């Protein structure tokens, strides 16, 4: 059965308390982040239905939001997701090369996951780190000033030790 952990339920209730009575739907975006964090970093339909029941809204209200925002994953992703920025300012500093290098190194194309379920490569649009380009998001944090060597180190780090994503 799908159920938030006690700790996450507490967080959800805290979030709901930030909005006026009857406006609990406002907590939807942050609650979906919590859901993604607990349920393997993606939103399966039963998870969205559970969130709808928690916030006392219709499932469709959750689906329409989950399909609009790019940070919600609607299919399973790898344990480590490399979200590499490719918009103009990053492009000027060589993000195309970094994306190609990661793809080559992991044997996957953007949008794909390695067969062992470890890595997903995703291209994203501007993450607001243009001065520290090229860069990518990994879990909660940014990895900036990327070079091929740095990419090697990050992949190695993911393979050999548990990297803190939250």
């Amino acid at each position, binding site marked *: 059965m799908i159920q938030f952990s006690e700790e996450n339920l507490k967080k959800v209730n805290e979030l709901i308390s930030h909005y006026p009575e009857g406006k609990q739907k406002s907590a939807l975006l942050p609650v979906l982040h919590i859901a993604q964090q607990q349920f393997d970093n993606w939103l399966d339909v039963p998870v969205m239905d559970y969130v709808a029941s928690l916030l006392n809204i219709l499932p469709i209200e959750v689906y329409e939001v989950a399909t609009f925002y790019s940070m919600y994953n609607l299919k399973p992703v790898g344990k480590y997701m490399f979200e590499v920025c490719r918009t103009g300012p990053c492009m000027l500093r060589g993000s195309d090369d970094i994306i190609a290098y990661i793809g080559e190194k992991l044997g996957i194309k953007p949008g794909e996951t390695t067969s062992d379920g470890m890595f997903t490569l995703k291209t994203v649009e501007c993450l607001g780190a243009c001065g*520290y380009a090229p860069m990518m998001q990994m879990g909660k944090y940014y990895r900036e000033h990327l070079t091929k060597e740095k990419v090697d180190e990050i992949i190695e780090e993911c393979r050999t030790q548990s990297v803190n994503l939250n």
Partner: protein
Amino acid sequence: MKKLLLEKDHIEGIRFYETYRREGGYKSVEKALKMSPAEVVDEVKKSGLRGRGGAGFPTGLKWSFIAKPEGVPRHLICNADESEPGTFKDRYLMEFIPHLLVEGLIISSYALGSNVTYIYIRGEYAWIVDILEQAIAEAKNNGWLGKNILGSGFDCEIYVHRGSGAYICGEETALIESLEGKRGNPRIKPPFPAVKGLWQRPTVVNNVESIAAVVPIINMGGDEYAKIGVGKSTGTKLISACGNINKPGVYEIDMTISVEEFIYSDEYCGGIPNGKRLKACIPGGSSVPILPANLLLKTAKGETRYMNYESLSDGGFATGSMMGSGGFIVFDEDQCIVRHTYTLSRFYWHESCGQCSPCREGTGWMEKILKNIEYGKGKMKDIDLLWHVQSNIEGNTICPLGDAAAWPVAAAIRHFRDEFEWHVLNPEESQRRNFGLAHYADPLIPIGELV
């Protein structure tokens, strides 16, 4: 030049309350709460502060529009959905001096009568949520938030609301929709948020930097603040500089320095790396028109161009650009304008909410045409088609995303048409860089030396 926002950003521990307070933090709250809310609004009006998110609308005037119907709560929302390519100044402020934003929010909430204030932050800035929440908790523990702040009778809570990756939510009505737990589809105005905003209540949405600027305005007084800068560009402005420069980063400038000084001085961008020459620049975030070096450093009339609202827009869109959000993107001589414009079009296509057909369809068309040209599959007539598509988006959408998508394409064709033609004429070489078109006429280098 005296810094007003980043003056203390180098002090160790300034992120935390004790240090921030010891360095004079929260003094403006003590001062403001002894004034009436209307007096606070007046000081901001006098300061001439213009919204730092991109539009440049006078903040004090915006505040004075808020409706005050009896018995209806009002809200202030801080727009921290910084997503304009080239812009990362708000992130810097929130990450390193979070208390400055909290302090500004308390005064601004008092001025507007907002007892519950929200910071809508872009979802990707996940770790900054923790930083802000800690700052808010510290402020609350020290009596700057909560009930009856400093015995003034004013109650205020600040909550951080995390978005989830949608550029469109930087538009104030889309942001409000998103904060209500919906898709970020902009609303038709009127009614304006100042009358019916969040949950149909009167709402003001202000950028992070605008809110932070209220702190020095109250501390020094609106008249003193207005003396800094030039003309209608008062105070200081944060510029996030990126692209091909030696020192990318966030700089606080007073708006009297020239563009040339900003790019080449060691105090700011530190010039172009590897001895390359300046080709072009987008001075105010990806939506504003790109300018070739000659029009960037000097206006069409041959006058020096300065880093302020008036000077950057001198010449209109024909030969000028805009201050925008302060996202300053520099291109060296090797960069391809077609490729860059293609990435921006892809960005706007990805970020269009899909509500208005000119934007939904037009951004997709522009992306496809530009991709064809960039990859050597374009025809000459595609350039005219591209111009036609962009001109049919501009002004025909509910929100400014349509304009924001059209302007960079229009400006790229206007100033760099020969690069588009070069791609069409040289399909085999379309992926080559540094194809040596004379448009990067850098006025600092004698004409004879140009490629």
